[in-house]
């Protein structure tokens, strides 16, 4: 049994018939990295949000199962569900500049979960925070713990957020485009850091990105999404050798290549887009009539 198992997850816009996720299923094991790819609006972030219980107020889960550690989160009462997520899962957010509370020092922002949700005593949590910062190669952790976010650089803050995510030893981490807001030189270091941390802690990692280059570097498995629907689920090696879906193939062709930067980029052709839209529409019809 996989650590995270999602079955037929459907998320809709409240009060309308619109669906943001259309029966998504996927599984991630401990120690495994799953990439969620697709263009903006494909629903890749929505999956992470549904798992962590942070869907926007306008959205709601219409059906399906989100099983974490053998327990269906959607069947739990809200309070218990929040506690499970806080204890067993964590988020590495996209923008390090906005993801830390500007009016709190760093230390309580790392230790709060350990003390309030996991019930650790304060001294132990403080030690753990120091260790975590050292683990993500932050020099002088004691000084950083006393800092306010505005006193630290963007790269530093992303390291802190990664340390904070791993501090409680969660079995599942959702990384929502964690390198998109960083500049290119920092991106590479952060990506390597996330991969190292994930491997060392044997965490199941769900990595949301629009960048196939990043997927190639960090993921073992990947899920290609369009319009909230899974088009293809495969291991990364075979995807790059031979994408299974015409849309995936077009997406791959539209990605700049590091080994051949001069190669011209092919936008996703219109007929591929139309075909995949028709596929989504057909799935909707099936759902309505079935």
């Amino acid at each position, binding site marked *: 049994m996989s650590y995270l198992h999602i079955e037929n997850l459907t998320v809709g816009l409240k009060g309308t018939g619109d669906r943001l996720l259309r029966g998504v299923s996927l599984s991630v094991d401990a120690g495994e990295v799953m990439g969620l790819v697709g263009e903006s609006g494909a629903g890749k972030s929505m999956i992470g949000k549904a798992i962590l219980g942070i869907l926007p107020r306008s959205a709601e889960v219409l059906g399906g199962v989100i099983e974490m550690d053998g327990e269906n989160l959607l069947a739990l009462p809200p309070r218990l569900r929040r506690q499970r997520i806080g204890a067993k899962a964590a988020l590495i*957010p996209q923008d390090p500049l906005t993801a830390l*509370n*500007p009016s709190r020092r760093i230390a309580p922002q790392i230790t709060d979960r350990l003390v309030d949700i996991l019930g650790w005593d304060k001294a132990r949590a403080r030690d753990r925070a120091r260790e975590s910062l050292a683990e993500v190669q932050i020099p002088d952790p004691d000084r950083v713990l006393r800092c306010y976010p505005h006193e630290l650089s963007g790269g530093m803050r992303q390291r802190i957020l990664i340390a904070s995510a791993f501090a409680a030893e969660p079995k599942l981490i959702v990384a929502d485009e964690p390198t998109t807001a960083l500049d290119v030189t920092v991106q590479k270091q952060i990506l390597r850091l996330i991969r190292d941390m994930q491997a060392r802690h044997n965490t199941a990692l769900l990595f949301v990105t629009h960048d196939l280059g990043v997927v190639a570097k960090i993921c073992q498995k990947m899920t290609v999404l369009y319009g909230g629907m899974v088009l293809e689920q495969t291991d990364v090696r075979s995807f790059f050798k031979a994408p299974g879906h015409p849309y995936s193939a077009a997406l791959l062709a539209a990605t700049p290549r590091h080994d051949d930067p001069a190669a011209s980029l092919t936008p996703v052709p219109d007929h591929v887009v139309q075909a995949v839209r028709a596929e989504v529409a057909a799935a909707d019809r099936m759902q309505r009539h079935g």
Partner: protein
Amino acid sequence: MLRRSLLRLASTLVTLLGVAVIVFVVIRVVPGNPIAMMLPPGATPEDELRLKALYGLDKSIAEQFFIWLGGVLRGDFGTSISTRQPVLGLVLGRLPATLELSVMALVLAVVWGGALALIGTRFRGGRTEAAVDVGNGMALSVPDFLWGLVLILLFGVLWPVFHISGRISPSLDLPFTTNFYLFESVLRLRFDLWADIVAHMFMPAVALALPLAAIIAQLLKQSLKETMHLDYVTLSRTKGYDETHVITRDALPNAVLPTLTLVGVQFTFLIGGTVIIERLFSYEGLGNMAIDAVINRDLPLIQGIVILFALIFTGVNLIVDLLYTVLNPRLRHA
């Protein structure tokens, strides 16, 4: 920091001087003659001139101003024409009553407005928030003195639970050495007196507080709702915290700053509102005294009261600025 404080002090002094000049000139230019009101029937023009000379009103306005300013710098604000007592003593004697009333109103407004904002945010998008909005609209669309009248009718006449007039029941023996009755009654552990004072202050304080509470509730709720969309709030949710915790711990400290600025500005309006509210409730404070002073054309007393009000306003703004620095860590190093 020292430079900033000195600049601040200098700008305060300039403000006070400006206020002094304007008040001094205006109350001498508008119709109404304090001397005429003091003269007994049948007084001769010579009597009038003598009286004018006695109060220095025969000199030019500029001369009068510098004589007055010279006195103020020595701590002498002149003598009240209507009561023939030193202005400083009169004004300082009334100040505690007005301060206690304003601060009580402010506390009520902050507690009530803050609570409504938090409740409205917690249950946003539903009937509870709509009810909060409607309540705020009502509180805002009625001025404080009308609230005062409504309160008198409801809780003074129909269901008399509060006193509608004065600061304390006249039958009580007062052991107080200062004029801070409310404060001193607590220090002396005289809770019987304290209860009587509160029963007198409560309605005027509520009348003053209602509009401010509505403004606080509305603005704070708005900033809270905006803050609730921010990433650090979302991150906090994923840690396992519930809505209430996220609102009070993550959103509130960051959303409170714009409200704080507004409270500073609005608090000065509230103090201005004491003039009418104190009259309405026959509360013996500065505002009530100000109205008497204007009716009697008591020029030195008017000047003294206005200068004191101006001092309070600048003091309030200074406190708000300091609080801002305390609450926003980003300003501390600037």
